[in-house]
C-alpha cells in the first residue's frame, strides 16, 4: 500500500536522497520562492532544466510520474484555455503588446504576447511542480519534520507532520477493513451500480467507524508520548537528522547562490520598475 503514495517512508540512496532534511527543505523552499517571485523566462528555464535533472536523478517510478505530469500539464492547459476564453488579449496587460497572429472574431484573437505569457506561465508552473515532485519523492516524513525544525518551525508543529504520516498507513488499513465489512453487509460501492448521491450517503457509513476508530487512538498515543517525555524541554533533537554529508557541504554555495539570486530579483524589480510583469525578448 505504501507505493500508492508519492511520499516514501523508506529513504532511497541517490545523491539527493542522501542529503539531510535541512538541505532538502532549504533548497526546495528557495526554488519555490524564486519561482513564485519571477516571471522571467531567463530564470525559469534554467530552474526547469535543473528540476528535470533532479527528478531523473532520484530514479522515480516512471509510470507513476509520467501519469501525474501529463495530468498536471493538461490541467494547466485547460486553465490557460479558460483564461483565453475570458481575456483573449491578456498579453497586453502582462507583456505589454498585442501582435495579432490569428483572429476568430474581434474579441477572440490570438496574440503573440498572450501566447508568450501562456508559455512562460506553463513553464513556471511546470518548474514548481517538478521541484515539488522531486522534493516529495526524495524526503521521508521524518526528514521533513527535522528539516522544518531546522528553519525554526516549532518542534510541536513538526511533530504533527511526522505523526500524521506515521498513522496514515494505519488509517488506510482501517479504511479498507471497514469498507470490506460494510461490503459484506451489502454496501454497493461500484460506481456503475449506484448514483453519486447514494454513494455520498453511503460514505457516511464508512466514515463514522473510521473517524471513531481513528480518534480512539489519540488517548493512547498521547499517553505514550507523555510517558517518554514529550514536551519536557523547549526543544528536541532529531535522531534521523544525520551529520552533513559531502553533498550537503557541496550544496552550501548553491544555497547561498539561490539566496543571492532571490535578493537580486527583488532588488531588480524594485529598482527598474518594469511596466509589465512578464519579460519578452521583443518588447523593450
Amino acid at each position, binding site marked *: 500500500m505504501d507505493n500508492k503514495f508519492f511520499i516514501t517512508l523508506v529513504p532511497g540512496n541517490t545523491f539527493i536522497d542522501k542529503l539531510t532534511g535541512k538541505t532538502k527543505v532549504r533548497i526546495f523552499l528557495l526554488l519555490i520562492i524564486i519561482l513564485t517571485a519571477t516571471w522571467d523566462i531567463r530564470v525559469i528555464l534554467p530552474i526547469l532544466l535543473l528540476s528535470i535533472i533532479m527528478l531523473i536523478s532520484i530514479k522515480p517510478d516512471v509510470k*507513476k510520474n509520467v501519469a501525474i505530469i501529463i495530468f498536471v500539464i493538461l490541467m494547466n492547459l485547460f486553465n490557460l484555455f479558460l483564461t483565453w476564453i475570458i481575456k483573449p488579449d491578456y498579453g497586453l496587460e502582462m507583456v505589454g503588446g498585442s501582435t495579432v497572429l490569428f483572429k476568430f472574431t474581434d474579441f477572440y484573437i490570438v496574440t503573440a504576447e498572450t501566447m508568450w505569457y501562456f508559455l512562460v506561465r506553463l513553464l513556471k508552473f511546470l518548474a514548481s511542480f517538478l521541484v515539488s515532485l522531486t522534493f516529495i519523492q526524495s524526503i521521508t516524513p521524518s526528514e521533513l519534520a527535522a528539516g522544518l525544525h531546522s528553519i525554526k518551525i516549532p518542534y510541536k508543529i513538526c511533530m*504533527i507532520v511526522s505523526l*500524521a504520516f506515521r498513522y496514515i498507513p494505519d*488509517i488506510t488499513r482501517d479504511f479498507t477493513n471497514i469498507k470490506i465489512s460494510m461490503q459484506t453487509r451489502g454496501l454497493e460501492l461500484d460506481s456503475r451500480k449506484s448514483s453519486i448521491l447514494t454513494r455520498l450517503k453511503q460514505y457516511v457509513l464508512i466514515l463514522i467507524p473510521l473517524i471513531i476508530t481513528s480518534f480512539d487512538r489519540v*488517548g493512547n498515543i498521547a499517553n505514550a508520548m507523555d510517558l517518554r517525555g514529550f514536551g519536557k524541554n523547549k526543544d528536541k533533537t532529531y535522531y534521523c537528522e544525520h551529520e552533513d554529508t559531502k553533498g550537503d557541504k557541496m550544496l552550501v554555495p548553491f544555497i547561498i547562490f539561490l539566496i543571492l539570486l532571490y535578493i537580486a530579483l527583488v532588488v531588480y524589480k524594485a529598482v527598474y520598475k518594469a511596466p509589465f510583469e512578464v519579460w519578452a525578448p521583443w518588447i523593450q
Partner: protein
Amino acid sequence: MNKTLSQKLLGTWNTKTIVGVAIGAALFGVLMNYGGIKVTTNTSLTSAYVIPAIVGALFGPLPAGLAAGLGNVVADLLGGWGFWFDWSLGNFVAGYFAGLVGLFGANVEEGVFTVKHAVIYAILCIIGCALGFGVVTPFLTYMWYSSELTITWIQAWAAIVSDATVLIVVGIPLLFALAKRNARGTNLSKED
C-alpha cells in the same frame, strides 16, 4: 469548566491536542486523496471537510484550522500534485471557522449536537469557506502567482460551493450521528 475566551479561540493545547491534530491531518490527507469526487484542479467534493468540524468539537478552532491546513499539505505530499500553500491557508481559515462551533456549546465528544448547533455550524462553514477560499486563497494566489483573477475566482467559487456543500450535507448528518454515538445513555431500562 470555565474557559477564557482566548482558550476558546486558541483551543487547549497539550499532548492530546497535538496528537488529535495529527490524526485529523492524516485523515484529512487520506480523504482528500480517496474520499471524494474531483470537480476541478483544486477542488473536489470531498468528505475531508468533516474533519475540521470534529477536531474543532474535540479540541477547539485553532487545532481544527491546523488539521485542515496541515492536512492539505499532507494531501499534497501523498498525491504528488505539487504544493498549493495558498489553498492550505484557505483550508486553515475554513477549518478554523468550522471548528468554532464548539464555542456555541456543541460538544460531539459528549454527545451534545442539536439543530441549533447544526444551523450555527452551517453558517460558520459558509463564512469560513467564503473567507478562506473567497478571500485568502485568491489573494495569496494573486500575490504569488499573479494568476488571472477571474480564473482564481471561478475556482474559488467552485471551492466555496463544493466544500460548503460537503461540510453541510455530509458533515451535519455525520456530526449528528457521531454525537448520538457518543451520547451517554440515561435512564436505560430493559424492555420486554
